[in-house]
């Protein structure tokens, strides 16, 4: 057990180091922070406008929730584009460089490698989100009446869970090809399909129900609204575990089928 843990940690540290040394990751972080910053300011301005309108009419609205929901929605949408770029090189690069041969001939299991990699890329993503949480917290702390930190935390936890699911599936796709670009595109397409699967299925009949439940957007929206639904947690966890499992299997299969 200790050996497995130390293996996972070794992979985790190596991957994390790669992300923090990579110019591409830095560029992604820059774009992510810039876009989210600009959009947060915009959402905030709109909110103040709305607030003055409602004030003039003498009505009251829950402004902080609206801001949080808008902003997390925006972050989720930006992440759709960012996450495939983070997960694309997880395995594709190892395959291209031949380092997969090193990992596959070391006393370390496939799933330990996959788990280490997933945790590393997720950590990097979390490090992208944390600064945003800092300025959000400043804004929300000035609201009156005070805004519930639970809703704030649940919303962001939802964002992280969503990312874990997407990254895990992206990792699986990355393990299927030598080309990072192809991995990124395929991951993006898959994520988009899962994002909008309820819209695509329509809302009729059993099939529509099933596809509706698989939708990332639907369950993400639940969490963003502060609703902790077990089915949402299970869905994101299932996608994550599925991605890990498929990755381990595909790496194993890669060794058997290669010619």
């Amino acid at each position, binding site marked *: 057990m200790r*050996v497995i843990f*130390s*293996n996972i940690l*070794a*992979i985790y*540290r*190596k991957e994390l*180091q*790669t992300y923090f*040394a*990579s110019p591409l990751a830095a560029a992604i972080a820059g774009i992510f922070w810039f876009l989210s910053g600009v959009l947060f300011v915009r959402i905030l301005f709109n909110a103040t406008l709305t607030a003055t309108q409602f004030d003039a009419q003498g009505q009251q609205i829950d402004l902080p929730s609206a801001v949080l929901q808008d902003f997390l929605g925006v972050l989720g949408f930006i992440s759709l584009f960012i996450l495939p770029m983070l997960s694309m090189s997880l395995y594709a690069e190892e395959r291209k*460089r*031949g*380092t*997969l*041969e*090193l*990992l*596959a*001939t*070391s*006393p*370390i299991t496939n799933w330990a490698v996959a788990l280490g990699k997933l945790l590393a890329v997720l950590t990097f993503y979390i490090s992208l989100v944390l600064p945003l949480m800092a300025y959000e917290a400043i804004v929300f702390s000035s609201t009156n009446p005070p805004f519930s930190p639970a809703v704030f935390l649940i919303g962001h936890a939802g964002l992280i869970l969503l990312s874990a699911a997407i990254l895990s599936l992206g990792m699986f796709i990355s393990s299927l090809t030598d080309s990072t670009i192809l991995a990124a595109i395929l991951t993006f397409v898959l994520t988009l399909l899962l994002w909008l699967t309820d819209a695509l299925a329509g809302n009729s009949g059993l099939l529509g129900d099933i596809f509706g439940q698989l939708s990332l957007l639907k369950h993400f929206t639940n969490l963003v609204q502060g609703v902790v639904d077990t089915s949402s947690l299970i869905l994101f966890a299932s996608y994550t575990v599925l991605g890990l499992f498929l990755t381990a299997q595909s790496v194993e299969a890669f*060794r*058997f089928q*290669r*010619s």
Partner: protein
Amino acid sequence: MIEVEHLSKSYGSTRAIEDVTFSVEPGEILGFLGPNGAGKTTTMRILSGYLPANEGTAKVAGFEVHENSMAVRKRIGYLPETPPLYPDMTVEGFLHFVARIKGVSAGDRIRQVDSALQRCNLTEKRKVLIRKLSKGFRQRVGIAQAIVHDPPAIILDEPTVGLDPRQIIEVRNLIKNLAGSHTVILSTHILPEASMTCNRIAIINKGRIVATNSPENLVEQLSGGAGYDLEVAGDASTIQQTLQSLPHVKEIAPLPLESETSHLRFRVTLQPGADLGQEIAARIVGAGIGLYEMRRFQVSLEDVFLQLTTEERSLEAADTDTDAEVDSTAESANSVESSDEGETA
């Protein structure tokens, strides 16, 4: 230490290796020699546990490579054809990473990494990013990576490919130093490399092992060693008799004629260590036989290699063409002989 029995592997319908059997004793260096595409890399990959074999067994330190993969992985160091390196890591960082995933305990890691750096002459490059290293240094990092956990068995796939002559010598010395405490298998398509570094050589061609022996014995057993090629005019049996009576003559074999003349050609093979040039010439001239050409030949490992790999091809032709079986066997014998034309004296 390493036992391989009846190993076969095919990719789809192409047979990569067939019925490969060999063993390596502890502390020995075995050279796996063969032309490109002979199945060297496939065999190495099976031994390392990277690829499964279709048939047969391969054991490292008593563990079957596929059934007991984890036990084997702990006991081998493996340098694939392309060194598996992470360009954005420093040499030292990379070796620490490898030591960690190979299960070197935290207390031993620094010492092991230092020793690997030292053995591979990388100490001064320890803080350099792998991306910035030259090909030769990268290859050395690849070897360091294979020995960092001090495994009993080391598998090196073409360790000197792409290096300059000075680096080749360094790497060869490094490999020689590994022998004794480690069992080493290295693959190469360069003959002198195998003969200089290895205790034993397994020659592989078209997926089959065609010979296994020490370099000296290979030359000794599979060729005639050294001798003379003669072109003479006279009666064949007289010439045979004349030369047969000389001491240290091992064999006298007729050679095919290169052009349309009435001359005869013979290959006189001598016992090792004997050089009878003077005596042969004197005997022939003394017997009144016309001597038109006398050329010394020395069979090298290169000739044996060529001989073995050419023979295989001819035999294969014989397999497909059963009508002309006798002819083609004779042909193959000829091709063997014509292939070991040595240096002229």
